[in-house]
């Protein structure tokens, strides 16, 4: 039982991190109808920027306090992500208005290649470390109910808390600020939003910047867990089943989907994996999502697809 709970909690924590990446997909899809394959590349790019600026800033300036350096690096990386968002909107998306979904998907794949190459040209391609001071030691919970208790990684716990508060903050932002309301209007209906005077291109820059911000946070958390390296961009491939499971247009869907995939993946790896030869994590998430989709083709919380001839 203790072991089961440990796996379950581990799955929930990983799931939270998947939802963080998935959130980036959902935000952009909701607002602009673009299925942004570049989200993984953005995570890598942001994490690389963060890691390298944290290394370079003490060298360039006389700053030495860890908190100040990390904060400054975070701000610089964020500024860079906003610049990337603005460039993507200006150079790519504004020229591909009204194209089919698959053309836009391919364009974001092109952006993926570009960002991967650009990030590694700019920041180097070794493995870098991000140290923002997340606690590393495991803690033991419920030691009185089970023998040995349930081991929980403090780092995972902190990451899950950050992810949860980010989601809460985004929800509040969408609900209570003027910009958030404009974003929701654009997501509902582009033309109607434009006709009441919401500037579409500015909204899209904001959405891509918010997605860049989410990518930065995800990059920092994943980066401090695994080290910043190229394989970080593959996290996006893990987040895809989360997005379609939860529904492409639903923020709560991304969270719930992430938790389902995270838990399903961990449990299947431990309880089904050995009899199949192991390593089933990578496709299990997709098959799980596929089974859910067969029951609900638009994902758990996606908008119902209505066909009109």
């Amino acid at each position, binding site marked *: 039982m203790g072991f089961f709970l440990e796996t379950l909690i581990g799955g929930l924590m990983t799931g939270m991190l998947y939802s963080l990446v998935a959130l980036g997909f959902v935000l952009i899809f909701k607002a602009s109808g673009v*299925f942004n394959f570049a989200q993984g590349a953005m995570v890598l790019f942001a994490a690389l920027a963060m890691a390298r600026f944290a290394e370079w800033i003490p060298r360039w300036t006389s700053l030495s306090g860890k908190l100040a350096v990390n904060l400054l690096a975070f701000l610089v990386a964020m500024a860079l992500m906003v610049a990337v968002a603005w460039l993507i909107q200006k*150079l*790519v998306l504004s*020229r*591909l208005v009204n*194209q*089919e*979904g*698959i*053309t836009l*998907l*391919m*364009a974001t*794949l*092109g*952006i*993926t*290649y*570009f*960002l*991967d*190459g*650009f990030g*590694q*040209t700019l920041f180097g*391609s070794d493995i870098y470390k991000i140290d923002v001071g997340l606690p590393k030691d495991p803690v033991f919970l419920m030691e009185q109910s089970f023998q040995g208790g349930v081991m929980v990684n403090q780092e995972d716990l902190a990451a899950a808390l950050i992810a949860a508060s980010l989601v809460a903050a985004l929800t509040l932002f969408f609900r209570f600020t003027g910009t958030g309301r404009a974003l929701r209007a654009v997501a509902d209906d582009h033309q109607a939003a434009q006709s009441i005077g919401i500037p579409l291109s500015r909204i899209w820059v904001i959405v891509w910047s918010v997605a860049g911000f989410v990518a930065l946070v995800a990059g920092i958390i994943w980066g401090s867990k695994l080290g910043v390296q190229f394989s970080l961009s593959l996290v996006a*491939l893990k987040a*895809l*089943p989360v*997005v*379609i499971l939860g529904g*492409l247009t639903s923020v709560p869907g991304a969270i719930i989907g992430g938790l389902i995939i995270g838990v399903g993946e961990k449990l299947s790896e431990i309880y089904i994996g050995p009899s*199949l*030869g*192991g*390593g*089933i994590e*990578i*496709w299990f998430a*997709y*098959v799980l*999502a*596929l089974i859910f*989709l*067969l029951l609900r*083709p*638009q*994902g758990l919380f996606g908008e119902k*697809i209505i*066909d*009109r*001839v």
Partner: protein
Amino acid sequence: MLYRENGQFKTSYGADQQIFPIAQDRVAMLLLLALAAVVVPGLASEYLLRAILIPFLILSLAALGLNILVGYCGQISLGTGGFMAVGAYAAFNFLVRVDGLPLVAAILLGGLCATVVGVLFGIPSLRIRGLYLAVATLAAQFFCDWAFLRIKWLTHDSSSGSVGVSGLSVLGMPIETPVQKYLFCLAFVLVFGLIAKNLVRGHIGRSWMAMRDMDVAAAVIGIRPMAAKLSAFAVSSFIVGVAGALWAFIHLGSWEPAAFSIDRSFQLLFMVIIGGLGSIAGAFFGAAFLVVLPIVLDNLPYWFGIPIDTALASHLTTMIFGALIVFFLIVEPHGLARLWQIAKEKLRLWPFPH
């Protein structure tokens, strides 16, 4: 008026059903075939055959298969690499386990296995659509990657799924030199190109296109969605599987599952989109573009005599590749085939403006 097609002068069904109704097109096609089958093997260097022409032929075959699914039937698939892997490993198993099985039969049987897997993963398309389906087909990709890495029986008990074939021959003729390999691939491409062209202009191709344009409306006018979608998956994955077997047997010789990774799927999808969705010629244009482009980008620094560190060069190559893809999509979202069509329309009127 280099190029003309004035009015309807057809007097027989034969004339009406020609693939190339214009005389110039027929001549040009025959010249192209003669060039591909006679001139190129005689003149091309070994490097040209090995590094460019053979990959180009095999990948255009795969792109052709994918184009049937994506361009004609409108079902986006990101699992092409997986279907290629199925074709390659199944053909390998047939060749190794069945004594005296001819090479061509093994490759076609490999294609049949890919068909079965393709139809299996195509079943969700009856309920799931668009981008949801695209992501769902990734399941096929990752499952195949995993299966060929972990299930020892499929790879004839080799470690890490790496296998190889040697001493291939057809009807007693060995396939060893690049020229022989090139001609072998060319034969496959021609046969499947002709089959595909005829399928898409026939009844079945029209039902695919109806399905692509609006599936509910197609069902209303009496096209069975299940038959149309699954047949597109079947034909597409058969061709893709054959291409996979050729890629493994002829181009690589010995291979491992990584040869058919998700990058291969993306590469093929790029070919189809850059070449032109829903066009047989487009598959060839796209394959040519994407085979040649990386080679040009890799060699560019050497041609200009700029020494660049290899790691930096590979990052720059990725970057330029991505930028060019985006640039291309912006300039011509309908692909190279569309440019070709525009050129033909201009030639029809030339030298008059209207």
